């Protein structure tokens, strides 16, 4: 019986990619006082369609913190094309931008036309007909959100991106872990891996096709690289000791990681093609949580060489790593902004562990989150938001805060703890 249950334990490890009910929902927790008022009129013809595309667009824009959408109940006109828009009507509602559109079912799927109006400028800004194959109305909605966001802010939209995250249920020896990939709004989650041993630290390849992660499924840590679409994977490293914190280089050819095979955890760089590793740091302290600068020329990492954890930057040319953080006695798990000019990190303040930002040109540190048990910040590919793990009551939830700290939202899960989020690169 005992050997049977052991066999079963190993079988529980599923590699199938299947739709699971681990969707996350969104709660906006802080709106920006500088958000732009926008109206997203319900799209004509969308009644009875499987998704309300205009509502998804409205939610995307709302979540970004850049926009303050007008409630539908306040829209006493519902135009569906630019020619029908009465600018005075919308100006009287203090709306600066308006999105109108219509949707229809086609033989192969759907067709959605949308237009974006500048109400104060009384002009049409953009418009497009989006062809939807199959049932991918959510994908189409996120695409429309991306176009609207970029037209108004000049910043590339990141609504069509994904997040990877880890779920955990249970305690002690009876735990279940899952690795999931979902849309950036937490919906359409798909299971990548489940295990009764811990899964940690998912990291996207720069082309968005693969995830590197740590799994304890052999009862010790190893780094795996898995193709998200096919589920195929390889075991990349399983040295003695810690195999942790994988981080892909911007060119996708190397993975920085923390290995303790030679004693203390040190930063290594693995060549993905031949899996050889090169040691980068060498001292008697903990070196972990590497992150590549966007130009690939330096690595940010956590080290306790000064006594407690602080962030250091190592230049690929060699030489001594430079200490970057001096505020407080706990700064860890740094991540660069996409322009490489700022870092986001976990800072221990008098209140607790919080997401913070620091400009690399100075050493001033700004706390962004209001929660106090934060972990694992991961930056959106357009740099506008940082997603992180935190606690709500006794549950682990994902939360996000804008890079300027003005707005935030939460993605609670129906069951279990959610943690270790990784925001994908741009996927289109």
């Amino acid at each position: 019986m005992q050997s049977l249950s052991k066999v079963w334990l190993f079988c529980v490890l599923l590699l199938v990619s299947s739709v699971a009910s681990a969707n996350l929902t969104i709660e906006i927790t802080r709106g920006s006082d500088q958000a732009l008022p926008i109206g997203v009129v319900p799209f004509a013809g969308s009644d009875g369609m499987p998704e309300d595309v205009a509502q998804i667009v409205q939610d995307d824009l709302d979540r970004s913190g850049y926009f303050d959408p007008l409630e539908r109940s306040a829209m006493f006109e519902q135009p569906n094309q630019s020619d029908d828009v009465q600018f005075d009507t919308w100006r009287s509602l203090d709306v600066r931008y308006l999105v109108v559109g219509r949707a229809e079912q086609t033989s192969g799927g759907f067709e959605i036309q949308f237009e974006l109006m500048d109400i104060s400028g009384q002009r049409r800004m953009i418009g497009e007909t989006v062809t939807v194959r199959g049932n991918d109305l959510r994908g189409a909605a996120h695409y429309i959100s991306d176009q609207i966001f970029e037209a108004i802010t000049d910043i590339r939209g990141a609504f069509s991106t994904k997040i990877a995250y880890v779920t955990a249920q249970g305690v002690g020896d009876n735990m279940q872990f899952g690795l999931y990939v979902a849309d950036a709004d937490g919906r359409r989650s798909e299971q990548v891996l489940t295990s009764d041993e811990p899964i940690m630290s998912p990291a996207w390849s720069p082309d968005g096709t693969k995830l590197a992660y740590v799994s304890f499924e052999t009862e010790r840590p190893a780094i795996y690289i898995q193709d998200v679409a096919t589920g195929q994977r390889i075991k990349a490293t399983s040295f003695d000791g810690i195999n942790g914190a994988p981080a892909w280089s911007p060119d996708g050819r190397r993975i920085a990681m923390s290995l303790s095979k030679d004693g203390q955890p040190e930063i290594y760089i693995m060549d993905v093609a031949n899996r050889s590793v090169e040691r980068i740091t060498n001292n008697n302290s903990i070196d972990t949580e590497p992150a590549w600068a966007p130009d690939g020329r330096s690595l940010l990492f956590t080290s306790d060489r000064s006594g407690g954890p602080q962030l250091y930057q190592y230049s690929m040319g060699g030489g001594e790593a430079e200490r970057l953080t001096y505020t407080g006695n706990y700064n860890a798990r740094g991540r660069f902004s996409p322009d490489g000019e700022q870092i986001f990190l976990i800072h221990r303040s008098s209140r607790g562990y919080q997401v913070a930002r620091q400009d690399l040109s100075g050493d001033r540190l700004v706390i962004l989150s209001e929660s106090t048990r934060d972990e694992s910040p991961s930056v959106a590919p357009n740099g506008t938001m940082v997603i992180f793990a935190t606690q709500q009551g006794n549950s682990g939830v994902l939360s996000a805060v804008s890079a300027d700290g003005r707005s935030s939202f939460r993605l609670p899960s129906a069951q279990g703890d959610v943690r270790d989020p990784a925001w994908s690169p741009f996927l289109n």
Partner: protein
Amino acid sequence: MQLKPLARSLAAALSIVAIAGCSSTGGTQDGDSYGSQDGSTTGSSTSGTGTGSQYGSSSGSGSSSGQQADSRIPEVRTIYFDYDRDTIKSEYESVVMSHARYLRANPSAQMVLHGHTDERGTREYNMALGERRANAVERFLNIQGVSPSQMSVVSYGEERPAVNGQDESAYSQNRRVVFNY
């Protein structure tokens, strides 16, 4: 009974210990001979003379049932740590010693030390802190003459809490090293 200092890599010495039942082996010489090279890395109270005296007293009191006890895996298999520390607290030294006796008496026994932290702080950094705790116990056992080939270390960081909760009571139960046979 006073044995010569145990050379940790000598299987011969270990087998003598096994035959002797190991209930009164060692004495202070173990601590003296290995304590100095271990130094501060194990934590100040866990090596050198402190180890020796603790060892001596426990072997004295346990001698009557020693042989029988050393044939069984010790029942207490978890020790707890202070926040952000990897020092083996004096109250747990007898637990570690009981495992040292068992492992010396059973040279074919294998044991994995699982290091754990509480949930505060970042996950991968906690992975490193959990490893430090397990390494501290491994070094302590090594000093007590346990062969390195019998031991290995796996850190689980904060990934496998023993109890859920966000207060010191929960945290203190999660900062631990578990002896897994």
